[in-house]
């Protein structure tokens, strides 16, 4: 039997958080796809990081809003991001509860306490809220300092002749190794903090004196639902609803048109109603015919007046005698 005090807190934290992340991931991903299809989520920069933080929500649920507002780092836009965080809360509580109970039985050989999922969730979320913005700030500062230092190092007269490819590789190795080491060390400290929380919870738990085979059987059966038919039906129905939502919201044509294939702005044609159109046309024709009649009358009268005027003019002015050639 192993005592929880013998296991390192980093190992405990990693064991629980890593498994909880993967346990909740498939369910969260289904919602992510629906929100993408419904155009509710956009990631502007640091795509991968933002996405990972979203999916690692047991520790980032409070940390991301703090980073976004306090450190002015924008990971994306859309109601989908906030909605996904909200939906992630029950998923994470369930995942942490399941993984935590298994871990207590298998590794500590202790009876998991009631409400383990909720306890682990809120404690991890609080640790994340304090620790992750700190990590974000420190790693960001270290990285930018390391980049400028590596750059100025390569600007030295001695190293100015280094070709571009080698220069990039050296610079990247210099600042990349510094920021990676800082990031890994800080993340391990954070994981170890969560591990200490789990260990302190385990310290008050009751030990089990059962054979290893029976313990394995117990935590294995914990993953099998009591009413398998009900769970299978619920999962299937949930899957069908999400699939229908996805296909209904999926854009039929590409949301990213290419320069070559821009479609002309087509105006919607008015609805054609034959009887109304005929009546309208008849009225218009009648109106136009009346206008033509009026114009013709006007023209005839004008010609008549012109004819009269010409006659009067010719009588008043005698024609000039023609010259002989």
């Amino acid at each position, binding site marked *: 039997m192993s005592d929880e005090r013998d296991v390192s807190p980093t190992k405990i934290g990693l064991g629980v958080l890593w498994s909880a992340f993967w346990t909740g991931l498939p369910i969260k991903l289904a919602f992510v796809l629906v929100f993408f299809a419904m155009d509710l989520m956009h990631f502007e920069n640091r795509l991968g990081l933002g996405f990972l933080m979203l999916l690692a929500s047991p520790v980032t649920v409070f940390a991301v809003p703090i980073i976004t507002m306090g450190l002015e780092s924008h990971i994306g836009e859309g109601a989908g991001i906030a909605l996904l965080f909200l939906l992630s809360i029950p998923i994470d509580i369930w995942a942490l509860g399941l993984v935590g109970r298994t871990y207590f039985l298998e590794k500590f050989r202790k009876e998991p306490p009631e409400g383990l999922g909720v306890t682990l969730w809120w404690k991890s979320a609080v640790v994340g809220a304090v620790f992750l913005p700190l990590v974000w700030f420190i790693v960001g500062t270290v990285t930018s300092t390391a980049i400028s230092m590596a750059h100025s190092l390569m600007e030295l007269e001695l190293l100015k002749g280094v070709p571009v490819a080698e220069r990039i590789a050296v610079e990247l190795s210099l600042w*990349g190794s510094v920021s990676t080491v800082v990031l890994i060390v800080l993340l391990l400290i954070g994981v170890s903090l969560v591990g200490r929380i789990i260990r302190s919870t385990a310290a008050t738990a009751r030990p089990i004196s059962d054979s290893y085979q029976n313990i394995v059987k117990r935590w294995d059966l914990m993953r099998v639902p009591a009413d398998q038919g009900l769970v299978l039906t619920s999962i299937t129905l949930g899957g069908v609803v999400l699939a229908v939502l996805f296909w209904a919201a999926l854009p*039929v044509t590409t949301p990213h048109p290419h320069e070559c294939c821009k479609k002309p702005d087509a105006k919607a044609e008015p609805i054609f109603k034959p009887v109304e159109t005929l009546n309208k046309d008849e009225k218009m024709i009648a109106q136009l015919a009346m206008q033509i009649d009026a114009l013709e009358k006007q023209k005839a009268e004008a010609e008549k007046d012109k004819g009269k005027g010409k006659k009067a003019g010719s009588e008043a002015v005698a024609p000039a005698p023609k010259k002989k050639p």
Partner: protein
Amino acid sequence: MEHSSLPSSQPTVIEKVIAFVDERVGLKQMQAKMLNEPVPGGSRWAYVFGSVLLFIFIMQAVTGILLMFYYVPTADHAYASTQYIIHDVDYGWFLLSYHFWGSTAMVVCVFAHMSQVFLWGAYKPPREMIWLVGLALFGIVMGFGFTGYLLPWDQRAYWATTVGVEIMDKTPLVGDFMARFLKGGPTPGQMTLSRFFVIHVMILPAALMGLAGLHLFLFRAAGPAGPFRGTPEEIKAKTDFFFPRQVWKDIVGMAVVFASIVAMAFWEPVVLLEEATPDPGDYHPEPEWYFLFLFQLLRLKIFAGEFGQFLGAIALPGAFMALLAALPFIDRDPERNIFKRPVALIGWIVVMVAILLFTVSAIINREFLD
């Protein structure tokens, strides 16, 4: 008299059909063999990559067939038909983007699968042949990526192929023949497209199906390697059948990969560049992202010149692949625990860091070129 009170003992039509097939092909025995395989140490998430790869391949085949309904493999129409798929075919953009990101997922999963086998020491006797066939499958997956990249016939496709074929040309003895065979002329054109298309949709899928079948057969013959840690008591206590736990894990793994590919199709859908021309213009040729590290490696001064290019493009990768192929025969130590194999662990970390470093370097290098 007792029999008359049991009306439900009569088999249904489905049961009759199953019994009919079972009598002829041994369906139940086959099912029992496939599902009741013992997994030493129980099911694990680390074992899902093989099934996930099979799933990705099936999805690639399905989306590829659907794309073929619209794609025209001629130099005159390849670009236009791809644009037609993206802009006019209902959900065509999604289908093409899924196919594109599916190929990336396949490469990632092959890397993950090979890494898992390497770190678990699962290539060691009696599993040498599984490893060798797996390496051949890795080559086929890379071939899929290389040949499929040309098909949209835009500038990116054209120049990536030109660079790739030029690298191939540097292979001693067979390089010139292979380059001429693939290009079918002095510059990539109709013959190149036809040949790449045939290789992509006929030769490689057939080869992959055959070798994947052989890989599975060899795996079932040798049995799973199991975990590299744990006492015999622990491993025995956790040993389980393939069904239902490992099957469930495989299904979840497939769902996660499927969702990730769909998410990528939304994030970065396929957008073509200008139509392929023999003049690169402002475009700086570069291969697909998983060949970027090699491309960046070739930019180093040490690999300049005819011999340097041969060294970087052919000799080094060739030697690395040869080392991987010889690995089960060189490493005769039965120890499988990666933490007790420091050379293997350090070697794996060095290779991964080098690939990451040169891939990111290639991305940064774009800024210098632009």
